[in-house]
């Protein structure tokens, strides 16, 4: 990334009564391509750059950001910081930090990805669409088929001496197909997220999406009742992502987490371990330093079912006399510093799906849930979600099931994990990159007819 010289800004900040100031710059260049009907239907070229400043005035922190970097006026930037700081009422003194630590230098940018030409990437997307149609004549349409990649960086500099920058790149592919038979319609989708082009397998993605749609064509609903339930790796990761806010010390301290006061206690089954690992190669959540410049490291958040730590930034750590866990996070240059996991996942076990199903005997295998932004409450832990999957009888996966809901309480569910499979999978990155293997739950509530 291009370096910013900041002396003038830091000097002016002092003059205007902003004691300490920090600049955060985020930038990215992306392209993505959507194919339809064997041609490029949509092509996008994106370049994004924004700057935010945060600064301390009378012990409070104010934030401001802009995307108009050509027209920045320093005085205005600083007075904006000051005005916002002036209305803050944080109970404690806020700080800007410089620890002068040497963070690791794991390479996050795979330059090999840039060596693959745009044409090859477009050809990959076209091939993926073609393969989807060739799998089964019941594949009626490929309604989304895309490849995209983004390369960018972030840079943090402050008046105490912090000066860090990091670049990374990531690519993704997504396909969604529509299967049709006798007036019945089902969709299925699949994706890959990685910065290693070799991880993108057009045939595997097309097959996975097609199988998901085809498997559900004959689906029926089922009777309501409580059942043993196997959650697929993607579904379990979806839930973990939705409830990951409960592990944020910010939410704990704000009285918005049911895990408050539970450190050192059993909060999950004995076989449960949850890990936050910022240093995994090719993973979207990896980073050498967090958004306050703290060096990141691997942590066991839950070990043998015992809650070991919350995720902290500097501010929440200080409140409890603890160090930051390197989880300070800004969604982008637009957001204030908050807390989020990095690569956050349930540690895989040893069971295969068929062993888990055999252990279950009878119940439900859920392979898809919908409406995650609405059907769950991250504070209470309650969830009720539209779902589909398969009935399980006599230790075998039987007929497809749809138009049901699965409901329960996430914190109760963590205590009721009967076995953990080996099929760890990471889902599309959100705030943090979350993964899980498939997990078997003792009892969840299924509603159908």
């Amino acid at each position, binding site marked *: 990334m291009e370096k910013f010289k900041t002396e003038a800004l830091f000097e002016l900040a002092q003059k205007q009564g902003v004691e300490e100031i920090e600049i955060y710059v985020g930038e990215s260049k992306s392209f993505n391509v959507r194919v339809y009907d064997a041609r490029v239907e949509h092509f996008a070229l994106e370049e994004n750059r924004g700057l935010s400043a945060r600064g301390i005035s009378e012990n409070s922190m104010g934030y401001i950001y802009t995307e108009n970097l050509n027209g920045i006026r*320093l005085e205005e930037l600083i007075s904006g910081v000051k005005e*916002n700081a002036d209305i803050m009422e944080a109970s404690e003194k806020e700080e800007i930090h410089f620890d002068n630590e040497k963070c690791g230098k794991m390479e996050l940018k795979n330059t090999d990805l840039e060596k693959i030409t745009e044409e090859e990437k477009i050809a990959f997307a076209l091939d993926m669409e073609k393969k989807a149609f060739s799998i089964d004549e019941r594949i009626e349409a490929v309604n989304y088929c895309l490849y995209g990649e983004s390369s960018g960086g972030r840079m943090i500099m402050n008046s105490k001496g912090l000066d860090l920058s990091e670049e990374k790149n990531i690519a993704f592919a997504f396909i969604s197909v529509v299967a049709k038979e006798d007036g019945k319609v089902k969709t299925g989708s699949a994706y890959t997220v990685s910065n290693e082009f070799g991880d993108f397998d057009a045939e595997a993605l097309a097959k996975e999406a097609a199988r998901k749609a085809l498997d559900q064509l004959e689906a029926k609903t089922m009777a309501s009742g409580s059942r043993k339930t196997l959650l697929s790796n993607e579904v379990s990761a979806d839930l973990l992502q939705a409830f990951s806010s409960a592990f944020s010390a910010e939410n704990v301290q704000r009285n918005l987490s049911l895990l408050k006061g539970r450190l050192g206690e059993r909060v999950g089954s004995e076989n449960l371990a949850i890990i936050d690992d910022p240093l995994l190669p090719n993973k979207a959540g990896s980073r050498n330093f967090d958004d306050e410049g703290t060096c990141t490291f691997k942590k066991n958040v839950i070990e043998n079912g015992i809650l070991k730590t919350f995720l902290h930034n500097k501010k929440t750590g200080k409140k409890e006399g603890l160090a930051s866990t390197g989880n300070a996070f800004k969604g982008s240059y637009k957001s204030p510093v908050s807390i989020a996991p990095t690569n956050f996942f349930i540690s895989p076990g040893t069971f295969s799906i068929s062993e888990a199903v055999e252990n279950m005997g009878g119940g439900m295998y859920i392979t898809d849930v919908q409406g995650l932004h609405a059907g769950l409450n991250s504070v209470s832990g309650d969830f009720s979600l539209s779902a589909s999957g398969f009935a399980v009888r006599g230790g075998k996966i039987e007929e497809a099931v749809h138009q049901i809901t699965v409901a329960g309480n996430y914190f109760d569910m963590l205590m009721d994990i009967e076995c953990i499979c080996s099929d760890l999978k990471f889902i599309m990155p959100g705030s943090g990159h979350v993964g899980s293997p498939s997990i078997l739950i003792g009892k969840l509530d299924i509603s159908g*007819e």
Partner: protein
Amino acid sequence: MSMALTMLLVFIGGRNKMLKANVIRGTLDAALSKGADFSEIFFENKRNQTIGLVGGLVENTVSGQDYGVGIRIIRGTESVYAYTNDTSAEHLKMVAEKAALALEGKEKTTVLDFRRHVGTPLIEILKYPGDIGKKEKVLLLKRAHESASGFSDEITQVRINYLDIVQKVLIANSEGLWVEDERVRTRTSIQSVAESGGEMQTGHFAPGASMGFEFYETIDLGKYAREASEMAATMLHADFAPSGKMKVVIENGFGGVIFHEACGHGLEATSVAKGTSVFAGKTGEKIASGVLTAIDDGSIPGQWGSAGFDDEGLKTRKNILIENGILKGYMVDRLNGKKMGMAPTGSGRRQSYKYPPTSRMTNTYIAPGKNSFEDLISSTENGLYAKKMGGGSVDPATGEFNFAVMEGYLIENGKIGKPVRGATLIGNGLSILKKIDMVADNLSFGQGMCGSVSGSIPVNVGQPALRVESITVGGRKER
């Protein structure tokens, strides 16, 4: 000295002016340089302010400026989109030329003379957010906090998030369209948490409008704050919702989320154009119960989902989607309209310059019917009264949708009974529309953010209370 630094230190005057006509013409021209039918530029300059209170104290506040240009090029039904934050004439030209390379054609179109249109606002903004002191905004939120936290001893936390936006846009295209529009919006969300015996429940309310700070003179924010707390406290002592298929009465206002998910998304040209919507090819057919009339209207003054012009520069208008159960039309944007052979309906929307526009909902609602709310309840022997709703989602290709009930009550012997906790309701759009058998006369709106291919945009959902004769309720209690 690097470029970036030079720009940072030079204080450029007039930086918030809209782009000049010759820059726009040059960019549109460059976009057509490799042969295309159409080029468009979307310039956005948006100021926003957020203030967050936790426990009655201001915990975060951000002022920001979103600023950038999106360039769209269309040839036939193929499109290219590019965006950048660097709006200098040379850079825009370079981006446009680079984008043009992705769409090589033969015929070069020329840019027609601009016909300038500066939008007359749908509603006069009386108090621009920027003219109101931040302390005055904080005062408003503190009063709301008092109302929420004072509701009962069980309320252990209240979070309030305030937002105001002034979005200026300039949309110009190679057909000579030139539209300038300004959208002013404000919203305050209140979340209350009630806690007792190791359990927590939440309540939520988030009123918003396309208005300035005067919005808060037209509503009683304290009343909404108390309602959020009442909901949290009620749910703390509520039993699980029932499970299985039953009759459900859905309250007015945000209850309209059922139509938004069950049908609205399926009527957006985004999914109709490819024939993958369950509603594709069904205009003129009876797709819903005869008591159902549904409308999308982006031109209602002051409403959260309104704007004078859409994000393709067309005037917004009232579009009748379903009339007495008959499908009348879709919500259509320019590109999908071309694919479908239909005229656009002022429905092209996008979150920001970062997204190409596509057909989206604005203020979508079910028209009032003839029954009273009491009729709906008294004619339902047993079922669920869904009083407060959350969001939902849909797969337009299958029509399978879901939405969340946040606060419910049992209906027993035609009367509203005990409160029950949240549950998700699921169904299939085509079949559920035929099962709406009663519509009340008490239309109102609720505000939400709708996420889809062109980003997250403000929308209203609305309806009078209505009854669905049978829908699956995802509760946790067998009946």
